[in-house]
Each structure stands twice: as C-alpha cells, then as structure tokens.
C-alpha cells in the first residue's frame, strides 16, 4: 500500500532571471515501510521535492499537481491543517545541522517543543521524552546533553540531534535531506547505521548525492536529473543493471568505479534543453533525443527508465 503518492508535480520559482523549473514533472510513490533513495547532482531539485511535500517553500512558488498522503491531497490543505502534519505525520530532517539547529536554544528544548505541541504533553513530560529521544539516537549522557546548546555538540552529534528531533513525534514518513553531507567517513557510517535502525517499519525519503550511502539504507532508488526522474529501480538493480546513460555515468563517477566524471555541466533549470534533458551530455544521443522528450517507461517490474534506448 502506498503511503505517499505524488502525481504530475511541478514546482516553479519566479526569479529575476526567469522561471526556475525546479521540478517538472515528477510522479512518485512511497509505500508503507519503504525506504526510497532520491539521488541526483546538487541543484537538480531533490531538496525542493522534499520541501514541497511538507510545503515549506516560499509563498511565491508555483506548485501544480497532487501529493496524496493517507487519503488527503497535501497541496489542498489549509496552512493550519498542514501544520498538524509537519513534524507529527511527516518529519523533515534538513541538511546542514550546524545552521539548522537554533544556536540560542538548548538542544533538549528544541526537541521537546515539537513533542509538547503534537502530543499534548506538559513541559516536563515533553522534556523527559526529549532526553529519551537523545538516548535513542545514541547520544551519551543524554540528560546532560539535553541542557547544552548546539555549539557544544560535534558535527556528528548535531546530526544525531537533528534525527532525534525528526523522530520525536513518531512520524509515519521521514524526509532526510543529505544527512551525511560534510561528515567524515567513520561518523558517516555511524549515522547511516543509525538511520537504518530508526527507520525500520517507517517510510523514508532519503535525499542524497551519495549513492554509496543510499545503497546501504534504501530499498528502492529514484534518480533525478534536471527536475524530473530518469530512472527508478530496486537498489540492487541500479547497481547491477543501470539503464539510463545518466545513471551509468553517475555510477562511473564514483571513486570505486573509476572516478570518471560525466562530461559537461548540469543544465540551468531556467533554460532546460529541448528533447531529452540529458542529451547534450549523453554519448548515445541521437537526433530524436534532441527533439522529443522521452517518457518514463517500465522496462521490467519495478524498473522504469526515461530513455529512447529502451523503447
């Protein structure tokens, strides 16, 4: 059963230089207890997708399409109804914990406030729960740590605190945006392990540009390029049988695969290439690719790709 269904989502930002087509167009499903990895280069619209699910984009953003969650279209909810979903039903762990934690509030209070709000606990109980949460993300002496400020935490600890904050109200869906970015390898592995553990029996949208991390956590992987999905498959299939030239290029650029970068640069989201958006960088591009926009086609069960090579 699917928990979240995104259909025909378009997200555009008006800017001085023109309309930024951050998402155009995305259809995606996340099933109950599914951990889905969303992979792509910086600036392809990954974060925007996460933000549009919990509707944290600036008011001038133009959003089209539907985002169904437990029988409700999130895009049609009032701001007040949406607030009851944020943090409680769907939690988002934002990237960069150093700037995402409020520097002047105690870590424990920052976790407790959501608990107090959504679970109706009093201050004391919420606080105890916050300490429990810190413990569950394996922060040593959580009682003491809850009384500290973010600047007293190390980078990995801040990330753990962010995760604790996201999990505090026991949400059904977690959106984790680049939780391992900027951490060194050992800490990264610990965080990955933790995320894997805490997301058991939960749905998670795991946004990252680090394919290695995604494989360890996710059941399925969606590859995003220039505002749309180009491939969707089980994690192992992405590795064994990547279909889209972009996915192949992405894999080849990994350190243990030879570090071969994809030529060219990712396109501007204001001025998208005609036809297949990847064609200017693609070695297999034909004349058709420059004119016609390929559809997403299911090649085998649970493995779809947006490329004319397979149709």
């Amino acid at each position: 059963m699917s928990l979240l269904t995104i259909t025909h989502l378009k997200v555009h930002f008006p800017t001085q230089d023109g309309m930024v087509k951050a998402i155009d167009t995305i259809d995606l499903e996340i099933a109950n207890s599914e951990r889905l990895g969303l992979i792509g280069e910086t600036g392809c619209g990954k974060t925007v997708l996460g933000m549009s699910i919990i509707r944290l984009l600036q008011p001038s953003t133009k959003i089209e399409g539907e985002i169904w969650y437990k029988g409700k279209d999130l895009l049609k909810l009032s701001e007040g109804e949406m607030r009851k979903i944020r943090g409680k039903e769907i939690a988002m762990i934002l990237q960069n914990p150093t700037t995402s934690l409020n520097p002047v509030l105690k870590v424990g209070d920052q976790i407790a406030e959501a608990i107090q709000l959504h679970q109706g606990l009093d201050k004391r109980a919420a606080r105890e729960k916050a300490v429990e949460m810190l413990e569950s993300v394996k922060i040593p002496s959580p009682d003491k740590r809850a009384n500290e400020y973010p600047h007293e935490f190390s980078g990995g600890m801040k990330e753990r605190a962010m995760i604790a904050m996201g999990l505090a109200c026991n949400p059904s869906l977690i959106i984790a945006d680049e939780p391992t970015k900027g951490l060194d390898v050992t800490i990264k592995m610990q965080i990955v392990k933790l995320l894997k553990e805490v997301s058991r029996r939960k749905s998670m949208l795991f946004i990252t540009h680090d394919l290695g991390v995604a494989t360890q956590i996710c059941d399925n992987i969606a590859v995003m390029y220039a505002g749309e999905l180009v491939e969707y498959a089980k994690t192992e299939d992405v590795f064994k049988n990547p279909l889209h030239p972009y996915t192949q290029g992405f894999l080849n650029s990994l350190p243990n695969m030879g570090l071969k970068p994809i030529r060219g640069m990712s396109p501007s989201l204001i001025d998208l290439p005609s036809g297949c958006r990847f064609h200017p960088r693609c070695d297999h591009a034909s004349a058709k690719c420059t004119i016609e926009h390929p559809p997403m086609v299911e090649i085998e069960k649970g493995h779809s790709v947006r490329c004319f090579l397979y149709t």
Partner: protein
Amino acid sequence: MHKITKIATYGIIIFVILSFNFFLPRIMPGDPFAFLTGDPSTDMPVVLDAGIKAKLLSYYGLDKPLSMQYYDYIANILHGDLGWSIYYNAPVWDVLRGSLKWTLLLVGTSTVIYMASGIMLGAVSAWKKGKRVDAGLLTFILSLSSFPSFFLGLLFIILFGVDLGLFPISGARTPFMDYSTSFEEIIDILHHLLLPAATLVIAHIGGIYLLTRNSMLNVLGEDYILTARAKGLREGYIMRRHALKNALLPISTMIALIAGFMITGTILVETVFAYPGVGRLLYEAVLVRDYPLLQGAFMIITLLIIAANLAADMIYVYLDPRVKHK
C-alpha cells in the same frame, strides 16, 4: 579575550572622556579661563565674587604645572569633587545629584517603552515583509522619526498642553504643591512625565525599529527557522521563540549608539519641557557659560552611556550561549 577587549575599550573611553574634559578648557582659543582672571573681554554673563573665584582658582590650579593639574583633577573626581558651579554657587555634584533622578526616570521610562515597541513593530514588519502592514509601518515610522525631538516636543506642548490643556507643559511636578498622599504625588509626576517621554519615544523609535526589522529579515532566512517550521510550530511562536532572540543579538551590540541618541534626545527634550534633569542643566550651563557645571553634566551623561553599554554586554551574554562558553 572578548572580556579583555571590552574592559580595555571602556578604560579607553573613560580615559578619553576625562582627559577631554580636562584639556578642553585649557587648549581652547580665547582662554575660557579669562573669566577667572577678570578679563573684561570675555562673554561671561556672571560676575564672580571673590569667594567663588578663589574656589575655582584652587580647583583648577592653573599656576601649577600641567601634569600636577591633571593629577589633581583625577584625584578630585575620585573623591567625588567635580568642582564648583558658578551659577548655582554650590558644588557641581550637589547640583547634579538633584537632577540625576529626573533624567533617570525620563530616560528609563522612555527606553523601556521605546525598546519594547520598536522591537515589536520591527519584528512584525519583518514577518509581514512585502505586505501592506510592513510597507505602512515602514513609511509611517520612517516619517515619524524624521521629526527632530525638540520640534516634536514643541508641537506636543502646543497641541496637548496649550490647546487641549491635557498635560502640564513644563517641569517634573506641580510647583509648591502639597501632596496629601504619595499616590497623588506619583500621579502628578507621571502626568508631567508623559509628554516628554512620549516625545523621546516617538523621536527615537525609528532606529530600533529599522534595526530589528533588518536583523529579523536576516534571521528569518536562516535554516533553523525552516527547521522550526518543519516541526509544525506556529508562525507566531517561531517569531517569538526562534527568531526574536537571535535577531536581538546584533541589536544589543548597538546599544551604545542607541543610548547615545537617547541621551542626546534627553538634552533637547528636557530643554523644551523645562524638565529639571541633567540635560536641562547642561543647556543652562551652556547659556550662562558655567563651565564647571557643563563639564560635570557632560561627565555624568557619559558615565550613563557607559553604564548602558555594560548593561548591553550583560544582556548579550544572557542572550547568546556561545559567549558564555568561550
């Protein structure tokens, strides 16, 4: 490190002010001490009697070498001896002491009101950035604070004091009044306080409003505000608890400037309303060229500002946990 620089800065300021007070009359062209030697070409409107003259001569000790004069000057100040007021024929400190409480009352009341309202309005404005509320508040407050405080005071006197007769137009209390209860006295004092305090508040609110607004706008773009929204917290709560405290940090470092403006405003407002504070005294001292009183009043004013700075530093430590642990 932070503390040492701060203390050093205060030390420098106090040293500069004291030295300045010391050297100013001694280096000015046209010999400001001419009145002491009875030079008829001075513009001293007060004729000195021999007793005062002797007191002043011994206070300034002009016949001693400069270094000795400086030493004596500092020693005198440390003993609370600020010299002798020519006009009042009394020790400068005694004259100042009577006015200090009124200035503290006026500045204190208006500072509290204007900080609270300025910060609140600035925060609201930033929150509603780009909407009508913001544009309206911005234009209104920028226009309002373009009025010089003394002009605003004059208008208030004419409008509320003379035309409507709602408020007394001068003084800090009704002269020669016997209060039957202390409540009555408080009411009378508040009645006199309201117009000058309102003038100060309105004339200076623009600065703190703009500061808060800019600071809030910066803070509202921070990631932790997004985190707070992602938790499903209400906007009002986010403003109060997550944004405001951060936005106040840069503001508290501006307290020195704010206090400076406030004190400046006080001199003018006290003059306009004949409010018997230190500012009014400074003005009087200028009019009658009572230099010892002038310098004494100036020193007190400077010390008030330094005290405001100290308070700001303490507020900063309270607001920003990162300072405490450094």
